C-alpha cells in the first residue's frame, strides 16, 4: 500500500497557516509520541499527519519503521486537509487541537485466491481455523489458511446459497450448516484439525426438509442448538441441530438408501417452528442473541422476530429489496443492510420513532450482496457489491477506508476472518483473502 513509504513534505509549509496540535493515542508505548503540542501546517492531510507522527516516533526511537496512521478529531476521521476539516466542522484553530491517532485500517496483503469450480455463493469465516464456502457446483468446501481445501461437503442437488458454522467452541468436531436452492438444509460434521493432503469428501449427517422453495440464508443460534433459515417461500424456519432425536426419522432414510450409494445413516429433521410474516423471499437472517432473529426480505422490510413468541417485534421499512443484513456495531445493536441499490444503510433500532437510517454509505455502483460487521470493533464493517468491489467502512467517515478490488465480476459474499482478514467470493469463482487489516 502507498502508506508504507512516507516522506515529510516541507515544501508547502512556508506559505500556509499553522495549527497547534497535540497528538494522543490509546496505542501501546512504542507507538506513543510525546504529548507536548507542536505546530504543524494546516494544509496537511492524513498522509502528512501520518508522516509527522512517524517522524516524531523516529525521533524517539531511531529503529522505528514507519507505519500508516489514521487521525481522529472529535471522533471523526480526517479525510481532507486539516484546514478544510476544521472549517467544515466549525472547530476553532485557536486552541491546541487534540488529534487522536489510530492505526490505519487497510488490508496490507492480498493472499493467493482459492479457486473454485463455480461461483462462490457463500462464505463463513467465523472460525479462525478454516473458511467455509458454498458454491454453485452444489458443494461446500472447507479451506485452511494458505488456500488449501481440506473438506468437500457433498450432497446438495442445488447450488449452495448460504453456509454457517454452528459450533466451533473448542470441540474437535465442527458442525456446519448449509442451505441450498434444492429447498433443503444440511448439517455436516467434520474434524477441522484433521490433516489431509487431499480434499476429503464428507456427507451430511442431517437433512432438514420443509421449505417449499429455495433456501436463501441460514443463521445459527449463539449456543449452536438451533439454526434458522430464510427461504423463497417467504418463511423463516427454525430447526434443531442436535442429532439425538433422529431415531424416528431413520425409516424414511432407509427408504432412500436404494439410490443412495452411501451407507452412512442420514437423519432428517423437520422445522420446529415457522415464522410467517414476510411477503416475499427472505433473503437474509441473523441470529445474534438467543431470543431475537433479524431478517431482511425482498418485500423491502427488516423484521425483528421474537423466537419464543414466533412474532415479529418491529418492522423497518426500507423501500428497496434487501439482500443482506448484519447486526453489530455499538452495543451489537445497529442493523446494517444492503439490497437492490448501491446504498448500504445502517439503522439504529434503539432510536425511537424513526425508521430513517442513521448512516448511508453510497460508494458502490451496484447491488450490495453482503455486509458484515467486525465482531470486535464498533465502527468497522465490510460490504460486497455486484460492481466487483469489497469496501471497508468506518462509521466515523462517509468515505470507505479501503476498497478491495480483487474480483473481476460480481462479489456474492464476504466475511471477516480471524479479525484481521476480509474474505470474499464471487462470480469469478475465486475466494479472495485480504489480510493484515489491523483493527484493535
Amino acid at each position, binding site marked *: 500500500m502507498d502508506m508504507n513509504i512516507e516522506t515529510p513534505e516541507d515544501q508547502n509549509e512556508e506559505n500556509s497557516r499553522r495549527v497547534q496540535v497535540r497528538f494522543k493515542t490509546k496505542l501501546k508505548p512504542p507507538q506513543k509520541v510525546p504529548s507536548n503540542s507542536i505546530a504543524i501546517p494546516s494544509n496537511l492531510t492524513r498522509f502528512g499527519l501520518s508522516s509527522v507522527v512517524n517522524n516524531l516516533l523516529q525521533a524517539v526511537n531511531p529503529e522505528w519503521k514507519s507505519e500508516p496512521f489514521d487521525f481522529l478529531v472529535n471522533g471523526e476521521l480526517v479525510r481532507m486537509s486539516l484546514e478544510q476539516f476544521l472549517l467544515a466542522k466549525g472547530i476553532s484553530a485557536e486552541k491546541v487541537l487534540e488529534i487522536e491517532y489510530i492505526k490505519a485500517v487497510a488490508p496490507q496483503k492480498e493472499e493467493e485466491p482459492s479457486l473454485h469450480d463455480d*461461483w462462490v455463493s457463500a462464505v463463513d469465516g467465523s472460525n479462525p481455523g478454516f473458511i467455509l464456502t458454498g458454491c454453485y457446483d452444489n458443494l461446500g468446501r472447507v479451506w485452511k489458511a494458505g488456500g488449501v481445501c481440506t473438506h468437500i461437503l457433498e450432497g446438495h442437488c442445488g*447450488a449452495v446459497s448460504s453456509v454457517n458454522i454452528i459450533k466451533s467452541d473448542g470441540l474437535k468436531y465442527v458442525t456446519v450448516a448449509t442451505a441450498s436452492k434444492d429447498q433443503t438444509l444440511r448439517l455436516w460434521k467434520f474434524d477441522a484439525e484433521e490433516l489431509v493432503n487431499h480434499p476429503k469428501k464428507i456427507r451430511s449427517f442431517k437433512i432438514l426438509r420443509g421449505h417449499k422453495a429455495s433456501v436463501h440464508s441460514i443463521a445459527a443460534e449463539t449456543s449452536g442448538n438451533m439454526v434458522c433459515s430464510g427461504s*423463497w417461500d417467504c418463511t423463516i424456519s427454525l430447526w434443531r441441530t442436535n442429532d439425538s432425536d433422529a431415531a424416528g426419522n431413520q425409516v424414511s432414510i432407509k427408504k432412500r438408501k436404494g439410490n443412495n450409494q452411501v451407507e452412512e445413516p442420514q437423519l432428517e429433521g423437520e422445522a420446529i417452528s415457522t415464522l410467517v410474516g414476510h411477503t416475499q423471499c427472505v433473503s437474509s437472517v441473523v441470529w445474534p442473541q438467543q431470543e431475537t432473529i433479524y431478517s431482511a426480505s425482498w418485500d423491502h422490510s427488516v423484521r425483528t422476530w421474537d423466537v419464543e413468541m414466533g412474532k415479529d417485534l418491529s418492522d423497518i421499512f426500507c423501500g*428497496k429489496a434487501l439482500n443482506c443484513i448484519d447486526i453489530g456495531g455499538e452495543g451489537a445493536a445497529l442493523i446494517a443492510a444492503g439490497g437492490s441499490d*448501491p446504498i448500504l444503510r445502517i439503522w439504529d433500532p434503539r432510536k425511537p420513532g424513526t425508521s430513517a437510517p442513521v448512516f448511508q454509505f453510497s460508494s458502490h455502483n*451496484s447491488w450490495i450482496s453482503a455486509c458484515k460487521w467486525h465482531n470486535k470493533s464498533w465502527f468497522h464493517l465490510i460490504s460486497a457489491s455486484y460492481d466487483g468491489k469489497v469496501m471497508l467502512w468506518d462509521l466515523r467517515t462517509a468515505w470507505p477506508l479501503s476498497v478491495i478490488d480483487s474480483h473481476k465480476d460480481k462479489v456474492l459474499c464476504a466475511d471477516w476472518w480471524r479479525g484481521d482478514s476480509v474474505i470474499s467470493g464471487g462470480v469469478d469463482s475465486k475466494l479472495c483473502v485480504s489480510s493484515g487489516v489491523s483493527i484493535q
Partner: protein
Amino acid sequence: MRERKKSSAVEVSSVKKKKEKKTKDNNEPREQKEKEESQSIMKQQKNTTSRSKKEKQRKATEDYQSLRESELSGDEVHGTDHDVDNADDHHEEDQTDGSEGHRGVEESDSSEDEVAPRNTIGDVPLEWYKDEKHIGYDISGKKITKKERQDKLASFLANVDDSKSWRKIYDEYNDEEVELTKEEIRLVQRLLKGKAPHTDFDQYADYVDWFKYDDALHPLSNAPEPKRRFIPSKWESKKVVQYVRAIRKGLIKFDEPKEEEPKFYLLWGDDSSAAEKANHLAYIPAPKPKLPGHEESYNPSLEYIPTQEELNSYQLMYEEDRPKFIPRRFTSLRSVPAYENAVKDSFERCMDLYLCPRVRKKRVNIDPETLKPKLPSRKDLKPYPVACYLEYKGHKGAVVSISTEASGQWFASGSTDGTVRIWEVESGRCLRVLEIGEAIQYVAWNPLPELPVLAVSAGQDVLILNTGLGNEEEQRRVKDLLHVETPTAPDVLDLGLVEDHLLKNLLLALMFTLDGVFGRMASQGRLPLHVFHPTRSIFFVSTKKNIRVYDLLKQRLIKKLETGLKEVSSIAIHPAGDNLIVGSREGKLCWFDMDLSSKPYRVLKCHPKDITNVAFHRSYPLFASCSDDCTAYVFHGMVYSDLNQNPLIVPLEILRGHTSSNGRGVMDCKFHPRQPWLFTAGADSVIRLYCH
C-alpha cells in the same frame, strides 16, 4: 300700446258706421262695398292683434306701400265712377269727425254686430277661388261672380288719368275696389308713424284719481288687521301633524339620498386602458407615422451617411429590402431639394390606413404552462424502474421473448440462436440452457408455481419444457404431466398457459369457431396477437388495425376496439381486466378503457420506432413499452376502482442501455411479478434488469 291699437281699430269701425249712416241713400252695392271694406280692415286688425307690434308696423308699411304701388300697377283701378262718391265722403267725414269722435270710442266693443260681409266663404285661402268664375257666395247662397278684369294697359291709363287712383285699394275678398277717404289715409299714415289713429286722442292725458275726493277722512277700509294674520294657522299645523304622523308610520317615504361615491381617478394613469374599458365602439386613433430621426436631418452626422460600398450593396438588394431613405448631407437648409417621394409616401400611408382595419382585438392572455395537464411529480410515484444494475449475458442471438416465474426467482428467455435459457434473477446466473434448434418465438412460464414448466413456441411447434426446478415431488408431477401431454397436437398458436381448466377446454372448443378468423389472418401473412382477460372468460384478438373482443362462454364477438393505428404490434391487459394497452408499429401506444368507449382513452406518441412489446405490472401501477429504438418507456398507469375517475397516466422514465442490432432494439419487456423491476430483452443478446 296695445290699447292704442285697439282704439284705432275701433275708430276705423266707427268711421264705417258713420259712413253707413251718411250714405244710406246711396245705392246698395256702394253701401255693401263700404261695409265690406270696413269688414276687411276689421279683419286685418283682428288678425294682427295677436301679433307683435313690430310685425304690425311692418304690415302697415307694406299696406301703405302697396297703396302707393297700386297707382302704378293699376290692378286695383276699377273705374272712374267712384270719384264723385269719394269726394262726397270726404266732405261728410270732415263734417262728422269732431262731433262723433267720442261716440265711436264708446261703441267700439260692438264692432261684431256690423252688417255681415257680402261674401260668405269665411276665412279660407282665396287662392281656392283663383281659377273659378266666382269669388264666393252671398248670404242667400248664390254665387258671386268675378268682375271683368280690365287689361293692364287700360287700367294703367285710367290710373294715370285719375288723380285719386292712389287712394284705391282692391279688396280681393269681395272682389271690389275700395277708395280710401282722406280721413282713412290720414289714419293709416298716423298708424304707420306709430301714433294713435285719432288726432284727438291725448296720449299723455293727466291721471284722474277717481277715488280721491275732497272730504276723504279715512282710507277705503279702516278695519284693523285681523288676528289670524298674526297667529299660526291651526289648519296648517293640523296638516303638519298629519304629515309628521304619516312619516313616522312610514306611509310617506322619501327617496334616500344617494351616497355619492368619491370619484377618484388615476391622475397619471394611462388613458388608453380607460378607453378599452368603455364597451362602446371606441375610436382607435391611427398609428402615428414614425418621427424623423437623426439620419433624416439635412446635415446628419457622418456615421449615418452610407459609404459607397454600402450604396453599392443596396443596389444588389431586392427592391423591398432596400432602405427607403438614404441619408445625405447638405451644406445648408436652402440647398435641400424637395422630397421626391412626398406624394407617394402620403399616398401609401393613406392606403395603409384605409386598407388596414384598425380593430381592437381581445387577446386572451393565457400562460401556456397552465394549459398543461397537471401531472403528479415523479417523486411521488416511486417506486418504478430507474437504473440497470444487472445484465444477463449468455445468449448468442437476439433475445426475443422473456417470461418470469410467478415468484420472481427465475425467468426464462428465448432467443433466435435456438436456445431457451433459465436465469436466476438475483444473481444473474444462467441455470439451464435448453437447446431447441429453431429460433424461438415466444416463451411462457406456467403461472402456477406447482408446475414449473415452460411453454415455448419455435417454428411450427409449441413445446412444453420441464425447467427442472422445484423439489423431487414437483419434478415427478411435472414428468407425469408432460408424459400425458406429449401426444396433444401442436398448434400454430402460442397459447401461453391457461390458468383455468375450464377455460382451457373452452379455448379448445373456441379454436374451431375462431378458425375462420385466424385462417383469414393467416392468409394475410401475419400472426394474430391475442390476450386473455385475467378474470373473466374474455379473449382479445387483434386484427391489423382493430382489437376484437370475444366472449368465450357465449362464443361470440362482444366488442370491437378501434385503435386508429396503422398496425398493431402488441397488446397487454391490465391485471384488473378493464384496461388494455396496444402498441403499434408507428411507435404509438394506445390505452383503452373498456368502460369508456371503443376508441382509445389516450394515445401516447413516444417511440420514434416500432413498439415491439408492452407490459403491465401485476401489482404496481406501472406499465412499460419497449421499442426498436433501443429504449423502454416506463409509465405510471393508475386505474382507480372508482368508476368516475379516469385512469391516470404519467410518463416516468426512459430506460436506455441496449444497443441496436440489425435494426432491432429491445424485443421484449416484462415486469418482475413482485418488484417494480423491468426486464428488457435486447436484440444485442443481452437481457437487462432495471431496478427502482
